[in-house]
């Protein structure tokens, strides 16, 4: 396969950026998107040109490192996949692919396709935890949790923190991300004692990081590689009102 790639290049956070166009030959349909970019970088390096910087690590869709805006879709056009699992068989020979970094005020570009997502960490630091000190726990079966609730909590807990929800949202809102964590803890009895403080602290931090608000458009749900549901946001709202 032959591809034309239009990729955002930006030296660092302070400098400006622009799109650069690359022609890439020899792309195999069974490659993943990041392997395709690795091939590009290998080619560029051999030509003495500067490679394209992008985050990627586990290549199995679980670490949340990778993420780029591909032809108008965060993580590309296939639902439920991270960029690293996106196969090139979903693209056509001769296709032009435009690749952009996540765009959001709280996600400044670090270099090329790499953005700083530490704002998400800061939201977690604000309250995304249960305050049980090591050694203080009772036997794991001391508190029974219904399978249904536990499974629901798990469905929310699978968030990989990639930021695709923010990238997809027209408001660059982090509500799906925040709601996933809030939901996990709200559903489990272990998380209830701090539920009030947690939801308030995390929402306050989300706001102060400059994320937008939720318009309930559902782009986040559509683009979430872990298919985290919009209901989590309803639950987050509920938890927030309940905290007063």
């Amino acid at each position, binding site marked *: 396969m032959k591809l034309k790639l239009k990729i955002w290049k930006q030296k660092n956070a302070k400098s400006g950026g622009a799109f650069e166009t690359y022609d890439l030959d020899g792309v195999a349909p069974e490659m993943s998107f990041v392997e395709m970019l690795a091939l590009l970088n290998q080619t560029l390096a051999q030509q003495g040109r500067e490679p394209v910087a992008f985050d990627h690590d586990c290549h199995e869709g679980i670490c949340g490192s990778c993420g780029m805006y591909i032809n108008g879709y965060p993580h590309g056009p296939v639902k439920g996949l991270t960029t690293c699992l996106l196969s090139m068989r979903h693209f056509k020979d001769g296709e032009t692919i435009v690749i952009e970094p996540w765009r959001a*005020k709280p996600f400044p570009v670090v270099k090329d396709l790499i953005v700083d997502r530490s704002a998400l960490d800061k939201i977690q630091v604000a309250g995304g935890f249960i305050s049980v000190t090591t050694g203080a726990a009772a036997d794991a079966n001391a508190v029974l949790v219904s399978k249904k609730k536990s499974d629901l909590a798990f469905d929310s807990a699978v968030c990989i923190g990639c930021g695709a929800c923010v990238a997809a949202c027209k408001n660059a809102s982090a509500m799906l991300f925040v709601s996933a964590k809030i939901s996990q803890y709200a559903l489990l009895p272990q998380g209830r004692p701090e539920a009030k403080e947690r939801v308030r602290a995390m929402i306050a931090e989300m706001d102060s990081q400059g994320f937008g608000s939720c*318009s309930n458009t559902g*782009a986040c749900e559509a683009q979430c590689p872990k298919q985290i549901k*919009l209901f989590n946001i*309803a639950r987050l*709202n509920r938890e927030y009102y309940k905290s007063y």
Partner: protein
Amino acid sequence: MNKTLFSAVSKKFVMALAGLFLLLFLPVHLGINLMLLKSDPEPFNSAAHFMATFPLIKVVEILLFLTILIHVTYGIILQILNWLSRPVGYKVRNKSETGAFSRFMIWTGGSVLIFLVIHFFNFYFIKLGLVDGNPEDFYSVAWQLFSIPGYVILYWICFLLLGFHLYHALQSAFQTLGLSNEFWKPVIRAISLIYAIAVPVGFAIIPLVIWLFK
């Protein structure tokens, strides 16, 4: 800024409550408007008169204007903040799958607001004495307006946009108020659809009926 009252979630909460209140008002207004279809101006005019003079309605009216003001102001503030959340946009338009009308709420809402202003000039300001006209005969005013084709087309466009606005608004309000879940979502969506079609269509058929049959 007070983090609680003005958090992203609180602002949406206020928007949703205000919006839902406005949703209650629309069917009432529609009910009165349907009286325009009678040949006798009396029922319509007396209903309008009642609305204009009954003391309790006065209170509701103030509440209504306040709600519109809050809904509009919060809508604009939220929109500006949301735009600021992405100072550098994408080159390729976002193709993520979303609710069809959810992305244009500020525009559909804005159009409705413009219509509202025109509407005020035509009716409400007459009542207040700001514009010339007979406040006791809105029936004739309405009939006269509906005889202007340009006005009717504008009227229809605005109600089409209002329908778009309402379809997302109703389900969004439930989601924002935390009242949506896997079970209720389809129900809420169906109600939204029915409401978003019934109310604007109700308003829109009035000039049509007048044209065709009167």
